[in-house]
Each structure stands twice: as C-alpha cells, then as structure tokens.
C-alpha cells in the first residue's frame, strides 16, 4: 500500500458546515440523553446556537477565497454569501418550527404511526411534548445545503444533495394534522427526488466520460477543448441540470412542488421555499458559471425556454388555485422562473441580482407561511381560499400584513419584490436576454391576479360563518412576521447595502 497523501484542509473555511453537522449529531444524542419534557427547549436552543455559531464563522471567514480538501469544496464570495443567507433564513425557519404556542403539542407528530384523534394524539394535545427529531433533521438539512452551495466537484455536490434531501423527505411526513396528505407528500417527494437524483448521477457519469474528471475546473478546461466528444458534454450537462432544476422547481420538473408544499407541515414548507431555493440556485449558479460557461451560448436558449415555461406555468396555474398553500407553491414556481432569468444573464450583475432575489424572496415567503399557520380552526390550518373571505374585517392587522406580503410577491415598488425583480431583469437586459425579461414582465402581470384576488377576498368579501378565528401568534411567529415585513420593507426602500454586499461577493473561484 502506498503512502496516502492527505490533502491540506482549511478547517476555518469548512467550520460552518462542521459546526452544523456536529450539532446535528449532538442533537441525536440529545434525543437519547435528555428527558422528554426538556427536549424541545434543549433541541431548539442547540439548533439555534449551532446556526448562529455557523453564521458567525461565515462572517469571520468573509474574506476567504480558497479551494480546499483536494478540490472538493470551494469557499468564495458566492459560497459565503449563500451560506450566510441559508443560515439566516434557516434560523428564521427554526423559529417557525419551534413554535409551540399556536397549537398545543406543536405542528409535528410524535411518531409516524400516530393518527389524528387517536389516544396518543390527544395526549400530545394535552401537553405531552411532540417529536423533537425535527431539529437535528433540520440542522442536517441546513448543513447539507451549506455543502451543496460550496461543492466544487460533482460527486461532493451529489452527496450534499442527498444529505439535505433525505431529512427533508422525512420532515415532510411529520405533519400532525392531515397525516395522510403529509405522508403522501413525503412519499411523492422521495420517489421523484430519487428519480431526479438518478438523472443527476447519470449526468455526472457523462461529464466524467467527457472531461476525465469531476472537478468543476477540470470540466471547465475540458469544455474549451473541441477535440473531446461533444455528445457526452451536452448529454451530461443536460442531465446534471435536470437534477438541479428539479430541486429548484422549474418546469417541467416542478410537478412535485404543489403536492409537497400542501402536504408538508407549514413550517417545513416555509423552510423548503426559503432555504432549499437558495441551495438549489446556488449550486445551479456554480455549475453554470464555473464549469460550463464555455458553452453558455448553447445552454442559454434551452434554459431560457425552461425559464419562460416555468414563469407561465406558475403564473397561469396560480390563477385557478383554491388552496393558499398550493397558490404559494405555484407562486414559488413562477419565482424560480424569475430567478432563472437572473441566472441566465450570465454576468456579475446576474449573479449578484439572483443572490439578492434569493434573500429577499426568502424573507417574504417565510412571513407568508407564518401567516398561513395562524389562520386555523379545530381541524388545523384553514388553507382553503373560501375560508379567508372577509378575514380583513376580523383581523385587520394580520390581513394587512398578508396584503403587504402579497403586494411584495406582485412586485409593487417600495417592496423588496420590486427591487429584486428589477435586479434580475436589469441584469438580463444587460446580458442580452431581453426576450426573457419581456416574458417575465408579462407573466408577473398574470401573477398579480391571483395575489390580488386573495387581497380582494380578504378585504371586500363579507366574513362567512366558516371564517376561522385567527390565532394570537406566539413570540417566535411574531418575530418571524416582524422580521419578514421589516426586511421586505427595508430591501424595498434601501436595497443598496445588500446589493453592495452581493456585488462584493460575486466572484467565483475556479
């Protein structure tokens, strides 16, 4: 056996991920060691401390630009910015996940076999604490996402993809209400996710065959060499892209989104809508900008068509939705299309605009789902649109906040929705992709309709018998709502500090 040469490892640059993975392992130990009644507090505390510590490390490492552990991980501007974004949005999601005061027993079921109304469920409602595995699972998912946006070779990226996907499949199944819907969603997500992973892996094999390596810089150099088998390159690129497009929920790989968003526990839906989106687009950006930018003229039109298709599928289907969580799912699909417009600008403005969009959208969508978790009746959340009729008369503050968030989604000026759309569309025009912007604007116009329909329903309809009561938000949910609205306003009125930050961070290392 020959001497194994250990590659140099920059532990500082890796520390955010290491902290999260260690905390997740500790969390599993906690499940064993700490008594049940203390677990919730300990787990939430542990998870929050880990996320904050990781965030601190990201800030400390903010000037690091390096490729480490044998070329597997790249820590550069986009990595650090996206990791910071994932951690901040993750912390906010954890607050939603940790909320226990809205419904006694929390939103998560203790054990998979417990059904609604069963004896165990009633015990949980009576005060027996629910499951706390959600915290280590969420922290694992967050760790995987951090690795995903930092991965500098395709296999590391695949591993990271699985590391954050598997906990998400589980988390989707944990809703305490509507158990069957939740379990169905989890199973669908798992099956289709595995299917997409297979595409990704297949693509990695093609790329390896083409380039003779899986590191992104190796691929980049191989792309410049016209002697290599081009069919392998394009097949590989297409299949790798499909794996990522699935996670980012772009048409026609979006089909899982509405079902999963609807079935998953609302805090998990919020988590996915905010953090998974950042991770998926982070990886997509890195692959397209670092490895395949040599064939940008070839993938731009194909992915452009996908972006347009996504925007229109999201916008058109949102029009007839009757369930708010599904409506927001389609809205998130359409937003994935707008993000893709920024990605396809393929310039620094595109990169910084996309990153800005991810942060802005993440905060708004977290606030939106936080509100959905508040409107409920005896059977849990009342997500059917008809139940929201006239809710503005009953709870003007809540309806006002929701109206504001919907206007943000519609891209009204003075909100972050406007500035972020402006950022990606502006970058795309500069990158010569005006046609994408035209379709983007048309579809935003369509998309304004479903949002405004909800606004009209909330304010101008008479409250019916079935209009549910609005729960008083607990401290954590109030914090999420407050933060979401604050950031949405701030990024709409004074976006320049964050835009500057994204500009500084818009250089990949290769």
């Amino acid at each position, binding site marked *: 056996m020959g001497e194994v040469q250990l590659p140099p490892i920059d532990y500082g640059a890796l520390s955010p991920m290491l902290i999260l993975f260690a905390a997740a392992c500790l969390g599993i130990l906690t499940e064993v060691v700490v008594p049940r009644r203390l677990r919730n507090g300990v787990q939430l505390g542990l998870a929050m401390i880990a996320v904050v510590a990781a965030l601190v490390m990201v800030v400390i490492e903010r000037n690091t630009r390096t490729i480490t552990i044998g070329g597997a991980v790249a820590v550069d501007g986009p990595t650090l910015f996206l990791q910071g974004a994932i951690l901040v949005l993750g912390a906010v999601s954890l607050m939603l996940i940790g909320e226990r005061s809205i419904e006694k027993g929390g939103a998560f079921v203790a054990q998979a076999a417990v059904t609604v109304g069963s004896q165990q469920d009633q015990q949980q409602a009576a005060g027996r604490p629910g499951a706390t595995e959600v915290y280590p699972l969420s922290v694992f998912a967050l760790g995987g996402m951090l690795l995903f946006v930092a991965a500098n070779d395709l296999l590391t990226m695949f591993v990271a993809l699985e590391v954050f996907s598997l906990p998400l499949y589980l988390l989707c199944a944990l809703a305490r209400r509507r158990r069957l819907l939740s379990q169905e969603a989890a199973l669908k997500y798992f099956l*289709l996710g595995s*299917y997409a992973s297979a595409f990704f892996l297949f693509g990695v094999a093609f790329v390896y065959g083409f380039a003779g390596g899986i590191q992104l810089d190796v691929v980049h150099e191989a792309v410049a060499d016209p002697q290599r088998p081009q069919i392998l390159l*394009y*097949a590989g690129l*297409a299949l790798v892209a499909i794996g990522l497009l699935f996670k980012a929920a772009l048409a026609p790989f979006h089909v899982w989104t509405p079902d999963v968003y609807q079935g998953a526990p609302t805090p998990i839906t919020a988590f996915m809508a905010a953090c998974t989106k950042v991770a998926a687009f982070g990886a997509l950006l890195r692959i397209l900008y670092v490895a395949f930018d040599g064939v940008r*003229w070839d993938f731009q039109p194909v992915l452009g068509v996908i972006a347009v298709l996504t925007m229109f599928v999201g916008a*058109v*289907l949102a*029009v007839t939705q009757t369930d708010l969580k599904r409506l927001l799912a389609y809205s998130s699909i359409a937003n994935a299309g707008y993000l893709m417009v920024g990605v396809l600008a393929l310039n620094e403005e595109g990169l910084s605009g996309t990153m800005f969009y991810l942060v802005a959208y993440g905060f708004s969508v977290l606030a939106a789902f936080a509100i959905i978790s508040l409107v409920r009746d005896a059977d849990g959340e009342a997500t059917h649109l008809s139940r929201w009729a006239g809710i503005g008369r009953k709870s003007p503050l809540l309806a006002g906040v929701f109206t504001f968030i919907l206007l943000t989604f519609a891209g009204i000026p003075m909100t972050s929705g406007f500035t972020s759309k402006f950022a990606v569309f502006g970058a795309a025009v500069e990158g010569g992709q005006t046609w994408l912007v035209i379709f983007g604007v048309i579809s935003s116009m369509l998309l304004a309709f479903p949002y405004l329909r909800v606004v009209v329903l909330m304010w101008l309809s008479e409250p019916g018998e079935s209009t549910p009561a609005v729960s008083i938000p607990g401290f954590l949910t109030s914090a999420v709502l407050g933060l979401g609205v604050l950031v949405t306003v701030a990024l709409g009125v004074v976006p320049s500090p964050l835009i500057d930050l994204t500009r500084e961070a818009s250089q990949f290392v290769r």
Partner: protein
Amino acid sequence: MEQTVEYAPATGVLSGIWLLVAIPLASAAILLLLGKRADRWGHWLGVVAVASSFVIGLVSFSALAGLEDGARSAELSLWDFIVVGGLNVDFGLLLDPLSGVFVLLITGVGSLIHLYAVGYMAHDPGRRKFFAYFNLFVAAMLLLVLGNNYVMLYFGWEGVGLASYLLISFWYTKPSAATAGKKAFLMNRVGDAGLAIGIFLMFTELGSTQYADVFNGVSSLAAGTILVMGLLLLLGACGKSGQFPLQAWLPDAMEGPTPVSALIHAATMVTAGVYLVARSNPIFSANTTLQLVVVSVGALTLLIGCVIGSAKDDIKRILAWSTVSQIGYMFLGVGLGGAAYALAIVHLLAHGFFKANMFLGAGSVMHGMRDQVDIRRFGALSKHMRITWITFATGWLAIIGIPPLSGFFSKEPIIAAAFEREVTWEAWTFGLAALIGAGLTAFYMTRLFVLTFHGPARWTDDIEHPHESPAIMTIPLILLAAGSIGAGWLMSTSVPDWLNPVFGETAEEAAHGVLSHTVITILSLLVTVLGAGLAWALFRNGTATEPQPAGALVTAARKNLYTDAFNEAVFEKPGIYLTRALVFLDNRGIDGVVNGLAAAVGGGSGRLRRLQTGFVRSYATSMLTGAVLVVGAFLAIQLGWLA
C-alpha cells in the same frame, strides 16, 4: 441691454420672509384639522394670521427699502425641493421691489377683506371652512409672488387655483356654483398646461428654472424659442387673469361669496398673470412680436370686457367684466414694455383698492337687499346706505379716471403709453382702443352706480327698508375708499422709481407719440365725461325691470359676445364626443381584449390543472418527457439543428 440679474442673500429681518407664507398656511391647516372644535373662534384666527403676515410684510418691506439702491433684494433658499438628474429646484423665496409691493397688496387688502368677511359670513354655517380656504389662498398667493424660481411660482399658481376652485363652489349645493367652480378649474387647466410646458421648455433650453439663471440666459436663446416660451407663459397668464381667449370663467366665478370675488377675483389672484408677465420682463422684452401679442390680447380683452359689461344687469357680473377689462389695461401696459411695466403695476395696485372697495360695496348692498344682485331692482339706495354709497362713489370715480382719484393717475398714463408705440398704425390702434375703453368704462360704471344708488326705488316687494351693514363691514369699506382716493396720486411716481431695479433703468424719454401728452389727457377726460354723462342721462330715471328687446350688438353683448357659445361648439361638443368615443372604445375594445385574455388564462389554467393528477407515475412521466426534450434540445444544438 446686457445686464446680469443677481439677487442678494437675505439677511437680518429679511431672513424671516418665510413666515409670510407659513403663518396663513399653518392657520389654514389648524382650521381644517380641528374641524368643528374651531368653529367658535376660527374666523378670528384667520384674520389674525393674515394681519400678522401684513405686519411681517410691512417690516420686511421697510427693511428692503433700507437696503442700498443697487442691492435691493433678498433671496432665501430654504431647502432643495426637487433634485433629479440635471434638474435642481430650490424651495426658495425672493423678496425684491416687485414681490414687495405684491406682498403688501395681498396682505393689506387681504386683511381688510378678511375682516369684512367676518361680518359677511356671520350667519354661514361653513364660516370656519371659508376662512381656512381663505388663508390657504393667501398662503398660496404669497408663495406665488415670493418664489425665486418658476417651479415655486407654479406651486403657488396651482395653490391659488385650488383655493379659487374651493371658494367659487363654496356653496356647492347650488348647482350654478358647482358648475362655475368646475368651469374655472377647467379653463385654468388650459392656461396652467401652457405655463407648465413653458417651464419645461425653460429647463430644456436653459437647464434651470431659477429666475436669475433664466433671465441671464435669455439673451443666448434663439428668437423663435423666446417667442414660444413667451407665448406659453402668456397662455398661463391669460388663463389665470381671465384674458382673451380664456376670459369666460371669471364672470361665472362670481357665484362664490362676495369677499371671495373681492379678494381673489378682483384684487389679487387674477392679477397673477400680470405679475407673471412683469416678472418675466427679460423674456418679453427680448422679442417684439411677443410684445405685440401681449398688447393685442390686452387691447382686445379690455374692449370685450367693456362691451359685455355695458349690457349686463347683475351687479357682480358687471364688476367682473370690468375686472376683465381693467386687467386688459394692465396687459396692455406690460405688453408695451419699458416704462409701461411700472405703469401696469401701478394700475394693478390702484385697481386692487378700488375694485375690492366696489366688490365689498356690492356685497354690502346685497347684504341689505336680501342677496338681490339685479341692478334693475335697486335704486334710491343712497339715502338708506350712506357709507356704502359714499365709499362706492369713490371706487366709481376712481375706475372711470376722474382726477384726483387713483384711476386717473394709473390708467391715463397707460393710454398715453399706447399712443407712443413706435409703429404708427400700432400707436393709433392701441391708443384708440384704450381711449374707447375709457369711454365705455365710464358709461357702464356710471350706469351701475346710478341704477344702484339713484333714481326711483325699483325694489322687489319683500324689501321694506334696506339697512346699512354693520361696522365690521363698513370699516374696511372706508379704509379701501381712502385707498381708492389717494393711492394713485401717492404711487404715480414713487412706485415706478421703486420698481426701477426690476424693470431696468428707463430714461424718461420725451414723448414721440402720434399725439402729444396733453392732448391725450384732455381726450381721455373728454370721453370719460361723455360716457358718464350719457349714462347719467339715460338711467337717471331708472330703467325697466324686465329685459327689453335690443339691437344686435346689445344682444350679442348680453350673451358674452357669443364666446361661451363658441367654446361650447368648438371645444365642449367635440370633447364630449371624443370622450364618448373613448368610453365606447374602452368598453368594447380594451375591456373586451382584457376580459378575453383573462378568460383565456383562466381556461388555460383550468386545463393545465388537470395535468396535475396527483399520481406519482404521471409526474414521473412528465419529468421523463421533459428530460428527453431537454437532452434532445442540447443534442440538437450540438448537431447544429438548432441555433
């Protein structure tokens, strides 16, 4: 005439000129915001606000007078108002000799009319609101004359337009008042649009709207540009001042309470157009064609006003048409240029006194005659309303220009200046127009005066014994009467000297007119006495109380020389049809397309929804199809089938 315009920064007392605008504005805000709580004392707050502005105006004015001859101006930049790209607009004020006299006129006459309104509006439930709007008007008017750039002027311009609209339709439950308010607003819009475009043009051509920059830059502009800019400003001025062709709204504006007519539609706001032309004198003096247009507008309007005024029977309408006509004289003056700028301003100030005096007098008459406005229904009031009669008489003698009352000193020089035009045909045309106007003015004002105060009583049956108005109304009348008597004599030489820095040094040239100055003075006195004597002889014994058949000219004059009919046929009717056509297009065309699209999207959405079956197998199929298409597309590109 190469001279640079410079304004000295405000110092000392003069740095407080912002209070002039701020005090009435704050008072208006308080009155409007407090609502009913201010009902009991609100009107006094309004009076005090304007009176304190007057005091500050006096102090500032004397401070200004104390400055050295060359540097008699005070510019105060409060803050940057609009900063966009190359456009930089100050929120700045400028007190110079011209704005100084306007400040005194507005706050001085304004105070008296506010005081009078306390009595006049005593029984009106909306008195507090009235004073709020009144204060708002004063603030806006002061901003108009005190601004140091055209945008500030426009700001005040729109402000007085708003206040005027609110006050004309103050009794908005009366359909005629509501309509009159709308008419004034719409016709002013035409002028305002002209002014706005003029300001835009200034910005594009000169890069600034500050007075100093604009006036210094005028000499570098092409003649055509100056002409267009001046015509646009003139359009604005015509709208606000009721000059041809935008004169029709002013007489209708008499639907408002009488103090409004006195303050806004006689003494101050309607002279804003004269102020605009006078302020912009470097622009207007730079182009002779432009001056000719201004002079023509003035001459035509003064004749129109006189002719229509002679045929009307409503006391306030006659006064309104006389206002139109007198402002015509002022336009004539500012159009003549040179020394006549100052003459126009003198006439404007004198007019402010005697017209406010007569309007308030008319209000006093109406107060005693149960709001009757038809002069055929007055008569013999001199015995019952002595103070009103005497004060009104001073106004009447002033306007027709009997020496030594103010009108003689202010109007006669304008007539003389008109005869001094260099081109002979112009001198004769405009000189004669002004002279004929003087005769007609004497005729219809005497008719008004005689029918109201003398001859047999022709009152309606419900009036037993007309009474004199209370002291709070007669005291302002007396003060204004004093002004009507003395103002002209006091101002005839002092004001032109005072205004020299604004209009440039104009050496008193020997008259080169087609007629000598003495001849003109004699002629104008002659036509005045002729007109007044004719009217006295005709109406000494009263008149019929019903409309009489009349010749073509009188019928036309009764119908405002068909200008309303013209507006209706040329602008209103096509406008209505255009609106209808657009509404039709909107309903059928645009809404049809929009609704159709919406239905299409909805239908498409419903169909696409069915693809979302909920079965994993169909989802997987759609992903597979997508994957095949994407891979296919990439390979197609690679093989050169696409792109």
